[in-house]
C-alpha cells in the first residue's frame, strides 16, 4: 500500500485541539505525520489535494444494525460498511439483534472475519442475555475476548430489575458498558408512535415519554449499587430521560448516552400521512423533546451522535403503519444532517460536531486508539467539503435498503475521501 499524503486541508482534531492548515501523511495503516503545509517530504506517496476541505479523524458510529447474520436481504456487513464509508465512517459498532442473535463468541468472531467483506472496522456489540430474552446472562468475558465492545439487548430492553443489575455487575467486572434500549415495554404494547395529540388524531397508539425515562431512572438507581458500573443509554429521545442522565452524571455516576440525527432533526409531524419511513423506536417525539436533544448536544450531556442505522426492505416498509417494522437508514446522512442542524443552524463549532461523531463516542465505548489523528493511530481519516450543499437521494444509497425520511433533503458538507486503516474505501472527486 502506497503512502498517502493529504495536502493543504484544514485539519480538525478535537482530541488534540488542533484546527489549522496541515498536511497529513498516512503510511502502513497508521497516521505517520501531521505537519505544517509543505513540511512533509514523502517521495512516492500518493497525494490527495485537500485545499478548501476539512481533514478529520474517520467518523465512529456506535449504533448500527448490519443485519448479518440472517437478514442479508436488508443489509450485509459488506453493504452496510460500504454505506458507512460513503458517509465518512471508519468504525461502526454492530448491534446483536441478528438472526440468530449474536450471543456467542463464535458469531462475534464470524462477524469480524475478512469473508464478510467489511470496508471499515466493525466492532460487534454482543447480546447481554441469551437470545436477548432477558433471562440468562451471556458469557461476558468470552465475548469480550472475541472482540465484543459492549453488551446490549437492543431492539428490546433488559427489563427485569434483577437481570439488569446482574448485567451491570458482570459487565463492570469485564470493563464493558451495558447499553440499554430504554423502553418499558409494559407501557408500549401495540404502540407505533409518540403518545400525544398527533397520535390521537392519527388513531395510532402512542408510547409515553415515561416508557423511556422510567427505565433510564430505574437503570440509574441500579447503577448506584454497582462498583465501576457503566450504563450507556442508546438512542435517547426524551427531555425527561436526558434530565435523568444529566443528574446522574452530576452525582458522579458513569452514565453515557447517544442521540440519533433523526431525533434532533425531526419531530413526529414528519409521519404525515402514515409514512413508515418516519416510523422507528424510539419514535420521533414532539418539538420540546427535539429541542431538548439539541440542548443536550450543545451542553455536552450527550456523548455521541449515533445513527441507529436500521435497514428494512421496501416490501416491509410499504405496509400499514402499525405493521411496518421500526427503523430507518442513517449512515449516509449523519454528517450532512449534523452539520446542517448543529453547525449551521445552532452554531455548534465544527470541532464539537466532529467530536460527537468520533472521539466522544470512541471514549464512551472505550474504543482505545480510535477517534484521534495522533501519530501512530490507525489511519482512519475523513476528508469532506464543509461548504458543499447537496440533496441526499435514497436511490443513490450504498445501503441495500432505502428506508429514510431524508430522501431529497438538503445536507451540508459532503464526503470526498474516506480512508480506513490506510485503505481508501470511498472517494468522490
Amino acid at each position, binding site marked *: 500500500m502506497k503512502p498517502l499524503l493529504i495536502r493543504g486541508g484544514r485539519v480538525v482534531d478535537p482530541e488534540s485541539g488542533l484546527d489549522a492548515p496541515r498536511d497529513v501523511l498516512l503510511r502502513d495503516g497508521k497516521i505517520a505525520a501531521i505537519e505544517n503545509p509543505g513540511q512533509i517530504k514523502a517521495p512516492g506517496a500518493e497525494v490527495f489535494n485537500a485545499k478548501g476541505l476539512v481533514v478529520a479523524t474517520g467518523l465512529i458510529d456506535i449504533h448500527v444494525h448490519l443485519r448479518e447474520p440472517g437478514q442479508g436481504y436488508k443489509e450485509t456487513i459488506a453493504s452496510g460498511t460500504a454505506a458507512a464509508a460513503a458517509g465518512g465512517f471508519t468504525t461502526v459498532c454492530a448491534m446483536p439483534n441478528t438472526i440468530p442473535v449474536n450471543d456467542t463468541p463464535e458469531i462475534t468472531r464470524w462477524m469480524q472475519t475478512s469473508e464478510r467483506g467489511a470496508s471499515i472496522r466493525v466492532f460487534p456489540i454482543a447480546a447481554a442475555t441469551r437470545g436477548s430474552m432477558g433471562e440468562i446472562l451471556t458469557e461476558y468475558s468470552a465475548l469480550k475476548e472475541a472482540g465484543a465492545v459492549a453488551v446490549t439487548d437492543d431492539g428490546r430492553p433488559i427489563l427485569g430489575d434483577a437481570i439488569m443489575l446482574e448485567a451491570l455487575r458482570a459487565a463492570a467486572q469485564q470493563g464493558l458498558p451495558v447499553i440499554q434500549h430504554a423502553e418499558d415495554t409494559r407501557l408500549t404494547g401495540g404502540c407505533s408512535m409518540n403518545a400525544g395529540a398527533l397520535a*390521537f388524531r392519527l*388513531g395510532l397508539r402512542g408510547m409515553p415519554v415515561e416508557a423511556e425515562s422510567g427505565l433510564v431512572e430505574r437503570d440509574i438507581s441500579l447503577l448506584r449499587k454497582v462498583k465501576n458500573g457503566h450504563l450507556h443509554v442508546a438512542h435517547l429521545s426524551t427531555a425527561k430521560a436526558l434530565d435523568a442522565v444529566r443528574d446522574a452524571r452530576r452525582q458522579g455516576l458513569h452514565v453515557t448516552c447517544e442521540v440519533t440525527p433523526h431525533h434532533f*432533526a425531526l419531530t413526529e409531524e414528519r409521519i404525515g400521512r402514515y409514512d413508515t419511513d418516519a416510523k422507528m423506536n424510539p419514535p420521533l417525539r414532539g418539538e420540546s423533546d427535539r429541542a431538548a436533544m439539541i440542548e443536550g448536544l450543545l451542553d455536552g450531556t450527550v456523548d455521541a451522535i449515533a445513527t441507529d442505522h436500521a435497514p428494512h426492505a421496501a416490501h416491509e416498509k410499504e405496509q400499514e403503519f402499525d405493521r411496518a417494522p421500526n427503523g430507518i437508514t442513517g449512515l449516509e446522512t449523519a454528517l450532512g444532517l449534523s452539520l446542517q442542524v448543529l453547525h449551521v443552524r445552532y452554531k455548534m463549532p465544527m470541532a464539537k460536531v466532529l467530536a460527537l461523531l468520533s472521539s466522544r463516542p470512541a471514549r464512551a465505548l472505550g474504543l482505545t486508539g480510535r477517534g484521534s489523528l495522533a501519530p501512530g493511530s490507525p489511519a482512519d481519516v475523513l476528508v469532506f467539503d464543509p461548504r458543499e450543499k447537496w440533496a441526499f437521494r435514497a*436511490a443513490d444509497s450504498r445501503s441495500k435498503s432505502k428506508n429514510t425520511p431524508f430522501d431529497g433533503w*438538503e445536507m451540508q458538507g459532503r464526503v470526498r475521501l474516506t480512508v480506513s486503516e490506510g485503505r481508501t474505501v470511498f472517494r468522490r472527486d
Partner: protein
Amino acid sequence: MALTRATVRKTPQEISTPSFFQQPIHPGSAITAGDFSVAEVKRILESADALEKENPFRRGDRLAKRRVALLFYESSTRTRTSFELAAKALGADTTLVSSLSSSIEKGESLKDTGITLQALGAECIILRSPYSGAPYLLAQATGLPVLNAGDGMAEHPSQALLDLRTILQFLGIRSSTVGAKTLNGVTVTICGDILHSRVARSNALLLPKLGAKVILCGPPELLPESAAAMGPGILVSRDFDAALGQSKIVMMLRIQAERLAGLQLDLDEYRSRYQASADRIAQHAPRALLMHPGPIIRGMEITAEVADGPQSAIAQQVHNGVAIRMALLVRALAGVKKGGRR
C-alpha cells in the same frame, strides 16, 4: 422548529420518482374528513339530495358498468351494504373482497391486493381496514380513488357526512345554504369510547368546519385530554349531564371491546355516568336528537327505550348512508376516464 424539506433544486428524474409515501392521492378519494373544504361538503350534500330524488333508471346510467371493488378487512353490516347498494343504484358493477375469503388469508399485502384489484379493472376501491392510515397506502399503491369505509381508530368520513346530513335534516337546514357558519350555536356531544372511535374523529374534524361546537365526553381511559387538540371547536368533558344540557345533538358510541387491548373498565360505573337512559335524556336533553352510528349494544351505552324512542335518529342515519355514498362514488368516478394511473 423542525427541519423542513430541502429547497435544493431537484433534477427531473428526482421529481418523477418520489418515494412510495410521497405518491399523490387521487383527488376523488375520501380518506379523512379533515381534508374536505366547506364548499366540497356542500357539493356532496347537494349531490346526495339530487341523486336520492333522481329517477332510478336515469340514476342507473351514471356509473353504468364502472367497476367498484369493496375491500373489507373487518366485518360490517351497515357500511358495506350501503356502499354496495349505492354503487348498484348508480349502475356500477361491484365485487366484494373480504379477508376471510381471499388471498389476504394467505398473506397477500394490501399493496398487492390493491394492484390485483386494479388489474381486474377496479376503478375505485372502498376499503375497510383494522389499520389506521391504510387507505393512504392503498391510494398510493394504485393511484385509484379510495373511499375510506373505516380505518382502524382513525376515520370514517362517509359516516361523518351521513351524520351531518341527518343533523341538517333535523334542524331543517337545506343543503344549498350550507356554509362555514351553518351550525353556529349548535353543540354536538359525542359520548362513549372516543379513543377507539373513527366515527368520533371524523365527526370532530367535520362538524366544526360548519361552525358546530363538539363536546367529546367519556372517562379518561376512553378519552385522553389530548383529544381536544385534534382541531378547532373541540372540547373534552367528563360530565355527561352538563354536556347534554347544552346539546341539540347527542351521538352515543359503543365500547369497542375488540380494541380495548387489556384496558379494564368498571362497566357499572360506566353505565351510571355515561349511559343514555330514558331518565337522563328526559331530564337533561328532552328535545335533542339522539344518534348512534351502530352497532348498538342495548343496555350498555344506550337503553332500548332511548334507541327505539321518538328522539332516536338511528334508522334515519342508516337511511342517509346510501345517498351520501352515492354522492361519494359519483365524486370519485364521474369525470374520470376509465383506467387511472399505472
